[in-house]
């Protein structure tokens, strides 16, 4: 018998983060140069997702910052949120996707390389926090929509040109 999925989809916008527990899933749409970082606890079946725009909060020129916008502050803030929700730090693992270069330019300004820089920055902070990176789908020049299912620990990735894959 067909059983519809019982959970709802928690949606995360640009420079936002949120947490989902099984049977819910968590999704962010239209990642370009931004990176979607998923931290998950397989035992507790809980996952957090942050949609990072920029590599480093030192790039910010404002006094108060939206922590979810930057790789360094965003991943840490997501970790804190997950710990409050009952995840165990030693069990946390990461999957990431995004960091594309949507347009090719000959005069490659540093700002145009923001996708690869975001990916590097996310890996650096995961490393500092001791959270293992289990899988990634990064780079290239396609936009991605990603959805993580805390029940299975699978990250579904949809692109316009290559269809759907799972990591």
């Amino acid at each position: 018998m067909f059983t519809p999925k019982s959970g709802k989809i928690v949606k995360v916008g640009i420079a936002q983060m949120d947490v989902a527990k099984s049977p819910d899933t968590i999704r962010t749409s239209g990642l370009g140069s931004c990176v979607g970082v998923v931290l998950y606890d397989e035992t507790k079946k809980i996952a957090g997702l942050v949609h990072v725009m920029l590599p480093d909060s030192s790039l910010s020129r404002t006094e108060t910052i939206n922590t979810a916008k930057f790789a360094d502050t965003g991943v840490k803030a997501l970790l804190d949120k997950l710990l409050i929700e009952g995840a165990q730090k030693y069990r946390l693992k990461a999957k990431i996707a995004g960091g594309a270069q949507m347009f090719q330019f000959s005069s490659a300004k540093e700002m145009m390389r923001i996708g690869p820089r975001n990916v590097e920055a996310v890996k650096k902070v995961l490393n500092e926090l001791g959270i293992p990176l289990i899988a990634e789908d990064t780079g290239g020049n396609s936009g991605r929509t990603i959805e993580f299912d805390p029940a299975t620990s699978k990250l579904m990735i949809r692109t316009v040109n290559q269809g759907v894959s799972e990591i």
Partner: protein
Amino acid sequence: MRHPDINSLHLDILKEIGNIGAAHAATALSNLLNKKIEMRVPKAEMITFNEMVEMMGGAERVVVGIYLRIEGDLEGSMFFILPIEQANRFIQHLIHEEHFDFRTNASDLGMSAMQEMGNILSGSYLSAMSDFLNLNIYPTVPGLSIDMFGAIISIGLIEISQVSDYVIMIDTSILEEGLENTEMKGHFLLLPSPESFDVIFKALGVV
């Protein structure tokens, strides 16, 4: 951070820039295609990144996007966004290839025609704007991408996101005559860098 100094007068001025720029671009498009192109009243709004994405039909909506950077006295990003069906119609008409389709059957000629169309339209938009403001503005060579709107627009939000969580979007939509009441609208989106607003208002004698 919002831009606290931007009031409704400022937004009206930005609307006028969208009006002048897009009117010239629409005329250029009309000449290029030999079709009547209508323009909608421009909008200038200060909104969050996510509100902007929702206004344009959502992050996952697949569009044809032309992007270029503006440099010179002003800095910022400019996008020409077309629904796929509309872009198909324009390119089919322009290169006389009935079956051209950005999703399945995109010939090199058609891709190159789209790039060139972006070049011509953004060039006429920006030169009209440059004349109006009496400022030097240099567009970079445009890039072309057929992908999700959220992914395409993010490159224009990166620079702004360093200083603000809000974007001031100058949006002018255009459409083919006879296609009213459809979703076939194209958009010229201008996203000036936050520093550029002072330059614009000073150039017009508004403080």
